[in-house]
């Protein structure tokens, strides 16, 4: 592969861009800023060394990641991309605690609902029993109206007739 124009790396280093330049495919001359960040943070030789250690099909991805890390470090010289990592970790912890709290509230509501359903069933049973109690004859439920609550009515009539002579009382 020949490079009629120098890549951004060779331009920055003010050298001839050879045909087998390691950096040329990943740092085109159209984007000098990209290589400038990488050069400032990692340096030309470190960048070349790291890319040479990788197989060809992984170098593009690696160059992109290095470029991102370098630009993060240029923007934030103290923390760089590690600042992004720590902030993401904080967000994860915060979201996890909120999730646990919400799940606790759901569990509480579920338990309340189950309790209410159980009470509903119990009350329905009691109501059914109470309804059955209302259907029985009224004199059975009040002992004052019937002096002989356990005696058959026919026997009473027979007794009353036998105490009279053809209907006359003695």
């Amino acid at each position, binding site marked *: 592969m020949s490079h009629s124009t120098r890549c951004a790396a060779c331009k920055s280093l003010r050298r001839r861009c050879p045909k087998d330049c390691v950096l040329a495919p990943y740092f085109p001359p159209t984007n000098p800023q990209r290589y400038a960040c990488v050069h400032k*943070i990692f340096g030309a030789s470190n960048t070349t060394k*790291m890319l040479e250690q990788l197989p060809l099909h992984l170098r593009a991805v690696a160059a992109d990641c290095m470029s991102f890390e370098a630009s993060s470090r240029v923007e934030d010289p103290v*923390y760089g991309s590690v600042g992004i990592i720590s*902030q993401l*970790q904080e967000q994860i912890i915060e979201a996890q605690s909120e999730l646990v709290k919400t799940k606790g509230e759901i569990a509480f509501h579920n338990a309340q609902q189950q309790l209410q359903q159980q009470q509903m069933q119990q009350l329905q049973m009691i109501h059914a029993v109470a309804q059955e109690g209302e259907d029985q004859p009224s004199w059975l439920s009040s002992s004052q109206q019937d002096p002989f609550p356990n005696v058959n009515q026919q026997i009473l009539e027979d007794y009353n007739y036998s105490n009279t002579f053809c209907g006359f009382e003695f």
Partner: protein
Amino acid sequence: MSSSNSPCAACKLQRRKCTQDCVFAPYFPADQPQKFANVHNVFGASNVAKILNELNPVQREDAVNSLAYEAEARLSDPVYGCVGIISILQYKLKQIQISLYNAKQELARFSSGQAIHPTLYPPGFIPKLQHLDNPSSSSSVLPYIPTGADTHGSQLAIRETQRQLHQQQQQQQQHMLQMQQQIFEEQKMVAAVAAREQQEREFVRFNTGFDPPATLGSINTNGYNQRNDDAAAAAVSPLALGTFENPYPIQTQVAEPQHHLQPQQGQQSQPQQQVGKQGG
């Protein structure tokens, strides 16, 4: 503060005299040689010195620790480095946010359910309940049962609550749509990253003869071991003073290069231009 008798790890590695104004000495003690070795391998001593000299002395310790962390991440994962960790954390965060959203939806259903069904018992049931129920078990267990007298007021309250819930649900649906779009994009990126990780592991296995760690976070350094998320959070928390106030621009900023990771196979000019915008 190092004396001429005990050079700092940096001066030891570079085999030079450690002076009293050595910029590395306070941050690379002699008992941690690996720390400087990693930083030197990835960034180079001169670049590190330039970075430290541009900072206030107060900020230098954090800067050194973050550089050490980044160097170790890059040595553990020569392809993705810290970007791999960021990608995994973003994915994890999205998963938790989805679970949280679903949980909040479920919680909102409870509230709407209770507002729509205020009476739990048939009318006329209450007097018998009071007569027949065991007084010792009645009061605190039973829920509030509105009588017929305040039915109208409760209906107005129900309508208002339903309106509020409807508004909340609409907002939640819009938010959910946005999240779903972001999630879909992130999942595509993560799938691409996972595929490349697999390729990388195969490469490392081929080159070194042993399997790399399954998770990208297995970094064994003082205070930056990410095998345990809690330890990592605790360890990195001194550095959790990032300048990024709003997480969404950060996620956008991080997402841009990862978009490049997907179409990288064979196409380089377009993504590199976009990354260049970041570096500006």
